[in-house]
Structure formats: structure tokens, C-alpha cells
């Protein structure tokens, strides 16, 4: 069964709606902040995973399909494998780079541009949330990011039609 990455965005929504349950004010704030950070991270991965699947399954991206084809018994040259491994080493960059390639379809290119813009913002939020100390998140920032993630999922839905 294929995992639906988009449900991470639903999880982010729940983390925002019910961020804490403790009574201790200090613990409660920490719990709220950890849930907010987790929500930002999940919102990004919800969109990233869905975009990855779109490239692999709808756009038939060769590099992303190689592992599946290998499992099915297809054989590739060492040079092909090396090229794919190098190209997809930084997979987050790779997905954004592939989305920036023109499809020669104005409607699709517009949707892909919008998707990249949101993905880029969400990625930065995710890096901040996962790695940066000293940030105290405001609920409204999380709200905007989750709404952005939903917009991106909508772009992807349209791209898959």
C-alpha cells in the first residue's frame, strides 16, 4: 500500500489545533512550541513527499523510477547508476530542480512555479523548526504555513489531472 504523504499536512493541522494538554504553564509552552515545530516539519514533508511521487509517477522521472525498475529486474549500467546516485544525492534540491524544468505547457509550468515557491518557503520553515534554537513560534506563522501546504497540494492535484 502506498503511503499518502499529504496526510502529514492533516497531522500538521491537528498539531496546530490541539497543541497542548498539560496544566503546567512552562511545560505547556514547551509542548505547544514542540507541536508547532513538528507541524512545520510535517507540512513540508507532506508537500515534498507528494511532489516526489508526482515526479516519479506522473512525470515518470527516470532517476526516481530507477530503484523501482531495479526491483523489477531491469539492469542498468554502472555509469547510469552512478549518474542517478550523484544527481539525487541531495534529494530536496533535486525535486525542486526537476520542478523548475519546463514542460512546454503554460498551465503546468505556472502550477509548477507556484508549487516550487511554496515548497521553497516550507523547506526554509522546516530547517528553522528542526535546527534553529531561540525561535518562539507564533500560532499565526504555523497557520500561514499549513495554508501554504494546502495550496501546494492543490497545485499537485491539478498537475496530476
Amino acid at each position, binding site marked *: 500500500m502506498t503511503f499518502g504523504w499529504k496526510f502529514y499536512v492533516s497531522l500538521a493541522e491537528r498539531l496546530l489545533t490541539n497543541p497542548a494538554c498539560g496544566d503546567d504553564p512552562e511545560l505547556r509552552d514547551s509542548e505547544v512550541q514542540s507541536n508547532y515545530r513538528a507541524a512545520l516539519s510535517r507540512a513540508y514533508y507532506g508537500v515534498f513527499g507528494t511532489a516526489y511521487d508526482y515526479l516519479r509517477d506522473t512525470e515518470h522521472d527516470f532517476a526516481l523510477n530507477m530503484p523501482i525498475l531495479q526491483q523489477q529486474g531491469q539492469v542498468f549500467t554502472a555509469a547510469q547508476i552512478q549518474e542517478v546516485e550523484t544527481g539525487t544525492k541531495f534529494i530536496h534540491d533535486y525535486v525542486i530542480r526537476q520542478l523548475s524544468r519546463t514542460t512546454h505547457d503554460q498551465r503546468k509550468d505556472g502550477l509548477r512555479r507556484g508549487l516550487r515557491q511554496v515548497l521553497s518557503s516550507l523547506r526554509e520553515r522546516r530547517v528553522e523548526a528542526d535546527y534553529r534554537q531561540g525561535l518562539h513560534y507564533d500560532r499565526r506563522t504555523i*497557520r500561514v504555513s499549513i495554508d501554504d501546504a494546502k495550496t501546494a497540494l492543490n497545485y499537485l492535484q491539478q498537475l496530476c489531472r
Partner: protein
Amino acid sequence: MQATLSISTSERMETQAPRSSEQVSNARVNSELRGRNELRIVDNNNQASDVIMQVAPLTQPGFCYVVFGRGTQPELQWLDPAGIESVIAETESLRALIDESYAQLCEIFRGDTVTLRSSVDPDEPSSRRLVIKVKTSKDFENASELWKRFNDDWWLPNFDRADDKLCILMDFQ
């Protein structure tokens, strides 16, 4: 009365009239460029105003360009100049895009703080890029509307120029 703006410098420079000149109205004014990075208004009594614009010289000698700033909008805050410069050094076209984006943000998010910093994803350290962040004091509905306007009218049409090296975010104060 129609305002007049002129820029005098110790060096000969070609200049572009600041776009906000129409806002400096109701008085006959002259402007003065000081230290090649500030634009002030001087009234008929030779009283200089506070800095009204930041002026950035371009790389070509002999040229000067008013690139950002409106009214009393403060300068874009560079949080880590060395890191920022290292990204710009790789993609020089970012400099103009940053200036234009900042001008747009100043226009739309009047009075809010705007910062610039470099960022790297620790999971993929090859991807150093720049982040402009506007920190708004506006209420959620108003800020969301302004943010949508900024994205639809400016950032999305110009996004490809960034080559994925610039990200613009909005936070709340």
C-alpha cells in the same frame, strides 16, 4: 506645488529619479547625496531632513541608482553580511532581486521590519541560499491579504529570477 528633486555629489553620476519623488511634495526641495549612500531632502533654508532613501552604487563606475527605500523606511537589515555576500558572489543577479523585493515589501508592509540572512539546510549543505523575512505587526487578516498581494503581484512573477537561491517569508511580531 510640484516637488523637484536633484542629487548633487562630488562625483559626476548618472542618476535615476527616485520613484517616490511624488511623495516629497508640497515644498520646493533639493536633495543631497551624502557619503554616496544616503539621500536627504534639503529645504529652502538648507535644513537637511533625515535620510529618506538608501542609495546603492552599482558596480559600473560613474553610475548611481536609487534602489530601495520609501519615506522613512529603514534600511534592509543584513543579519550575517559575510554569509550573504558569499551567496551573492555566486549569483550576482540576486543583488538586484533583493533590492527590488525589499522595495516591494516596504511598499506593501509599511512600517514592518525586514531582514536578510543566509541559510543552509544542514541535511543538504550544498544548498546555501538567502532568506528575506518580513516581521509584521499587522493583524492576521490584514497581513494575510498583504502577503497574498505581494506573492501574486510580485514574488511569483519574479520567482524564477531567484534560481531557488532566495526565499521570502512572513512572520508575526
